[in-house]
C-alpha cells in the first residue's frame, strides 16, 4: 500500500538532500502517491482524520485543483495573499501580513518552486523571512513541489525553499510529482512525505497514510514508480536525467527571453520583465480576459483567460508570431 520503497527513498533524497539527517534518522513518513494530486489528497485526508480542527491556507491564485482537493477532503480553506497584479510579481508585504495574522499553528500550502499559475517565486531572502515567521507562528508548511528540476534546471536549486525550512527546524509535509520533470504525466508517479518527531512516529504516520490509501485505490500503480526508481538508482541514468531535465528547463528559459526580446524589438512600451523574472512552465502575462479573447479569435492563440501562458507551448518557430499578436492586442494607440 505504501508503494515502491526504492522510489520513495530516492524521492526523499531529491527533496530533502542526499545527506539529510532526517532520512538517516528515519524520521520521514513517506508513501508513493498518484502524482502530485494524489499526494495532496492523501495529506488533506490525513489532516481531516487526525487534525480535524485544522484548515489549509491556499495562495491566491493557485492551481485550481488545490481547491477541489481540500474541499472534497472536507478540510476548510482560507486564502493568503500572493500575486501582485500591478507588478506581476509577489505581494510580499501582503503575504507576510497574512502569515502573521493567521492563527498560530495554521497549515499553509506553499509552492516550492515555479508557482502555478503565476510563475512568481519568492527570492531566497524572502523564503528565509517566511520561514522565520512560520517558526514564530508555529505554522505547518506543506510544500507542493511539482517542478523540481524543471524550474531552474537544477533540482538542488529548485529545492532551496524546502531546504531553508528544514534548516530552520520545521517539520514539513511535501508532495512530489514526476509528471513534468520526468515527463511521466500519465503514469501518475509521485510521493507524499511528512517529517515526524522520530522513527516510531514516522512508522505510525506512514501506517495511517496507507490506511487512507487502501480504500481509495489499495496500492499505487507500479509502472511509473519503477521507471523513476530505475533512473534514480542508476548513476548513469540519473546523470542522463539531470541533463535532460536541464535541457527542458533551458528551452523554456530560452523561450521566455525570446518572447521578451521580440516584444521589445516590436517597440512595445509596456513592461515585460516579468516574462523573464517568472519561472517554470507558466507566465502570468497580465493580459486581460478581453485581450486573451482577441488573441484567440483573431490570432488562433489559445490560453486561459487569466492571461496565463504555458511557455511549454512556445517554440522558436512560433515565438515571433506570439510576440506580434501580444503586441497587437496590448499596444495603446
Amino acid at each position, binding site marked *: 500500500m505504501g508503494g515502491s520503497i526504492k522510489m520513495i527513498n530516492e524521492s526523499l533524497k531529491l527533496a530533502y538532500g542526499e545527506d539529510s539527517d532526517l532520512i538517516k534518522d528515519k524520521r520521514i513518513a513517506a508513501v508513493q502517491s*498518484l502524482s502530485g494530486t494524489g499526494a495532496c489528497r492523501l495529506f488533506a485526508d490525513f489532516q481531516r482524520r*487526525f487534525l480535524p480542527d485544522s484548515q489549509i491556507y491556499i495562495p491566491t491564485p493557485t492551481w485550481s485543483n488545490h481547491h477541489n482537493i481540500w474541499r472534497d477532503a472536507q478540510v476548510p480553506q482560507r486564502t493568503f495573499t500572493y500575486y501582485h497584479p500591478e507588478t506581476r510579481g509577489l505581494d510580499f508585504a501582503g503575504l507576510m501580513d497574512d502569515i502573521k495574522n493567521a492563527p498560530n499553528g495554521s497549515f499553509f500550502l506553499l509552492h516550492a518552486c515555479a508557482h502555478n499559475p503565476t510563475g512568481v517565486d519568492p527570492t531566497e531572502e524572502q523564503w528565509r523571512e517566511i520561514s522565520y515567521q512560520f517558526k514564530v507562528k508555529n505554522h505547518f508548511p506543506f510544500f507542493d513541489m511539482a517542478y523540481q528540476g524543471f524550474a531552474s534546471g537544477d533540482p538542488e536549486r529548485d529545492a532551496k525553499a524546502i531546504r531553508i525550512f528544514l534548516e530552520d527546524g520545521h517539520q514539513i509535509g511535501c508532495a512530489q510529482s514526476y509528471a513534468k520533470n520526468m515527463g511521466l504525466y*500519465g*503514469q*501518475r508517479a509521485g510521493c507524499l512525505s511528512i517529517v515526524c518527531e522520530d522513527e516510531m512516529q514516522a512508522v505510525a504516520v506512514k501506517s*495511517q497514510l496507507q490506511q487512507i490509501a487502501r*480504500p*481509495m*485505490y489499495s496500492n499505487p*500503480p507500479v509502472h511509473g514508480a519503477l521507471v523513476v526508481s530505475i533512473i534514480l538508482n542508476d548513476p548513469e541514468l540519473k546523470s542522463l536525467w539531470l541533463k535532460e531535465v536541464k535541457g527542458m528547463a533551458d528551452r523554456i528559459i530560452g523561450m521566455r527571453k525570446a518572447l521578451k526580446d521580440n516584444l521589445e524589438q516590436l517597440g512595445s512600451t509596456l513592461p515585460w520583465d516579468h516574462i523573464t523574472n517568472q519561472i517554470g512552465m507558466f507566465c502570468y502575462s497580465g493580459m486581460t480576459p478581453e485581450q486573451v479573447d482577441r488573441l484567440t479569435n483573431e490570432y488562433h492563440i489559445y490560453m486561459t483567460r487569466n492571461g496565463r501562458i504555458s511557455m511549454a507551448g512556445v517554440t522558436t518557430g512560433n515565438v515571433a508570431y506570439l510576440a506580434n499578436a501580444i503586441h497587437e492586442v496590448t499596444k495603446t494607440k
Partner: protein
Amino acid sequence: MMAVAVDISRFEGVPMAPPDPILGVSEAFRADKNDLKLNLGVGAYRTEELQPYVLNVVKKAENLMLEKGENKEYLPIEGLAAFNKATAELLFGADNPVIKQGRVATLQSLSGTGSLRLAAAFIQRYFPEAKVLISSPTWGNHKNIFNDARVPWSEYRYYDPKTVGLDFEGMIADIQAAPDGSFVLLHGCAHNPTGIDPTPEQWEKIADVIQEKKHMPFFDVAYQGFASGSLDEDASSVRLFVERGLEVFVAQSYSKNLGLYAERIGAINVVCSAPEVANRVKSQLKRLARPMYSNPPIHGARIVANVVGDPVMFGEWKQEMEEMAGRIKNVRQKLYDSLSAKDKSGKDWSFILRQIGMFSYTGLNKTQSDNMTDKWHIYMTKDGRISLAGLSLAKCEYLADAIIDSFHNIS
C-alpha cells in the same frame, strides 16, 4: 535566527494502524523457515510452481507498446477512450443495446478498489440518504471503502456455515427488508471470500426482489473470465440485470484476469436509462476523480486496449485465462479427491467442487485455522478462507491431511 521550537508534536495523537489482516499472513509466511510451508492467504494467482505469473499476452502487448513508442501525456479524467470502449464491450457484450444506445457511463479507474470508491463517493454525494447492503461475509476492503466514503452500510445474510453454501432465503429476506432504493453490492462471479455464487435461477430471484424494492444493483466484477474460464459466462449475472432494463453500477478489475495487479486498471460503469443521463453521471464521476488523482495511469489501460483490440492477442488472452481457471479447477478436484480418500468420517467435501474462483471457504473456524498454521505451516486467513490460486497439485495431499486434522481434532 533562533526559532521557536515545537513542544508537542502535532502527530502525538496518531496511533499505529493495525496490520492488514491479509498482508500479515504473507509476512508470517515469509518468516516461517519450515520446508513444508504453504501460503494460501495470497489473493494472487500462482503457477503450479507457485510463482507469480505474467501472462504471455501481456508481455507481447508491452513489447508492442515499447515499439510503438507512444508518449506519456495525461489521459483525460475519464481515462483511455480505447480502454473504456473495450472494457464496456467485454462486460456487457459488444452488441448489447445499452452500449449501442450510449447509455453506459464508463470511467477508467484504479482497479476494483478505485472503481468502488468512485461509485461510493458518487452515492454519498447524490444519494446521501441511501444505504449499501453488503454480503456477510465480503471482501474486507468493501467496508473500508464505504466507511471512508461515509456511506452507511448493513449486511445481508450470504454464507451458511451449516451447508458451507449460500443462505439464499436469508439473502432474499434481508434484501427485501431493506429500505426501498438501497444499493445492493453483489459479486458478479467468484464471490470473495467464500467462492459461493448464486445459480442462474437464484440470480433471477435476486433480480426480482431488487426490482420490486427499487434497489440499485451494484456489481463488483473482479474475476470476469477467471472464474469459469469464459468471459461471457462470468458476466451473465450482470447481463441478466441489464436485460431487465435496470440501471446498474458495475466495478471492474483486470488485476486477476490479466494478471495486471500492480498496474491498477479497472473501470466503473453506470448503466443509465438514457444517453443524456449517462453523460451527466459521467461528468459527475469525473468531478469526483479529479481531486482524488486527476487522471488515471496509462500503462495498464494501454495493455488492456492492445490485448482486446487485436483479435490474435484477444484469442491468446482467452486461452491463458482458460488455463489459469483450469489450473484452479484441477487443484479443486485434486483437493476434493484427496479429502474424500483420506477422510474416513464420511463428511461431504463436495462444496469444494461447487465453489468457484480463487477462494474456498473451508468451514474451518479460527482455532482450526490457527492449527493449520501452527501445526502444519499452512497460512490462510482466520475466517477459514484458502486461496486455491496459491495451491499446487503437488501440495494437495498435504493440505488434505492438514484440513482433516484441523477439522476433526480441533474444535
